[in-house]
């Protein structure tokens, strides 16, 4: 994985990666290094927009060091005054995107940048509006298998049950509804964010459900998801209830 028989067609504009960060001083340099490595290996133009919510741990200092290494045109730091939430972080980051395509991902190593060229390739092939990573599906044509590391049986069962519930009720047409590793066409992202009102992972679900309702074309790329590299993955009862409420809310709103 990581090398391709055919080159990824590049866009006329750089692909933007929006990274909302909060206390990611340890992870940010490595994520940027991985992104840089992936894009350079595939001859793709890139920008990373770091939207930091005033992290007290020095995330912004490290971001500035990375600017020294990769250039201020590649690592764009756009901090905010406080912890303001994910949706607004995307809105904020979008304002500084110069490219036609925006990639959103987590900065905690659960999403690996090596899949981004696959996203881009699929988008170019089928002229898609959105490409989303899926942990649960396999694609023979892409030669990729979804997978998760770090879940025990109970966690996997909850995840499968939750996915079944959402798929049956909302019929979203994607196999992984709560995933947040996605490529969007920039105007599509802008228009969807305007309409979405939820928070957290329900926000990701709402984005996808609204996208489908509006008729945007969506493709999927299987990804491997390394959950909580340095710790246990917990899912409590309140999160399950919150999820059910989220699904209900979307069912009755969209």
């Amino acid at each position, binding site marked *: 994985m990581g090398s391709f028989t055919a080159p990824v067609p590049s866009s006329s504009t750089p692909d933007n990666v929006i990274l909302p960060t909060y206390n990611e001083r340890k992870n940010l340099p490595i994520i940027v290094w991985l992104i840089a490595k992936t894009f350079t290996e595939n001859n793709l133009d890139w920008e990373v927009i770091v939207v930091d919510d005033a992290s007290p741990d020095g995330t912004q200092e490290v971001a500035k*060091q990375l600017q020294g*290494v990769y250039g201020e045109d590649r690592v764009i730091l756009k901090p905010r005054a406080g912890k303001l939430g994910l949706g607004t972080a995307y809105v904020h980051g979008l304002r500084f995107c110069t490219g036609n395509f925006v990639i959103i991902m987590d900065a905690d190593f659960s999403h690996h940048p090596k899949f981004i060229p696959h996203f881009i390739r699929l988008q170019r092939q089928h002229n898609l509006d959105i490409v989303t990573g899926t942990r649960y599906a396999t694609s023979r044509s892409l030669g990729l298998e979804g*997978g998760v590391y770090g879940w025990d049986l109970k966690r996997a069962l909850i995840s*499968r049950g939750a996915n*079944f519930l959402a798929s049956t009720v909302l019929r979203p047409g994607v196999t992984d509804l709560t995933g947040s590793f996605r490529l969007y066409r920039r105007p599509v992202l802008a228009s969807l964010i305007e309409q979405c009102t939820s928070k957290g992972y329900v926000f990701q679900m709402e984005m996808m459900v609204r996208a489908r309702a509006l008729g945007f074309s969506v493709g999927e790329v299987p990804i491997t998801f390394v959950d909580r590299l340095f710790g246990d993955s917990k899912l409590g009862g309140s999160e399950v209830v919150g999820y059910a409420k989220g699904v209900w809310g979307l*069912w009755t709103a969209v």
Partner: protein
Amino acid sequence: MPTGFQKFLLLSTVLSALYVLALVDVLPLPFLASSAKDAILPVVRLPPGIISALRSQADVFEGWWADEQLPWWALVTFGSYSLGSIGWGLWTFRECPEAHRELLEEIDQAKNELWDKGVSVD
């Protein structure tokens, strides 16, 4: 634009109406023998008085609970499908320890390279 929930309510209402109409013999089911219909459709055997008021032909039922009716059958089928689907998802759930290993190696490599370039990594 109707929400998913509204569409579901509409579909449920239509299907329920069709079901009730078939039950009281208003909706003809030409390919289904009358005795088969009586066995499949009803959920509960109502007392004779109510039945005869609803139907042109009154039958006398004994007991109040019937087996093999459509709604229960549908429910059990859906339940089986749900369990089967979740079970299948669990069976085909893939773990990726190789991704974890690869990631750890890359993190080490990244730390070394970035440290040399003056970025304060741990």
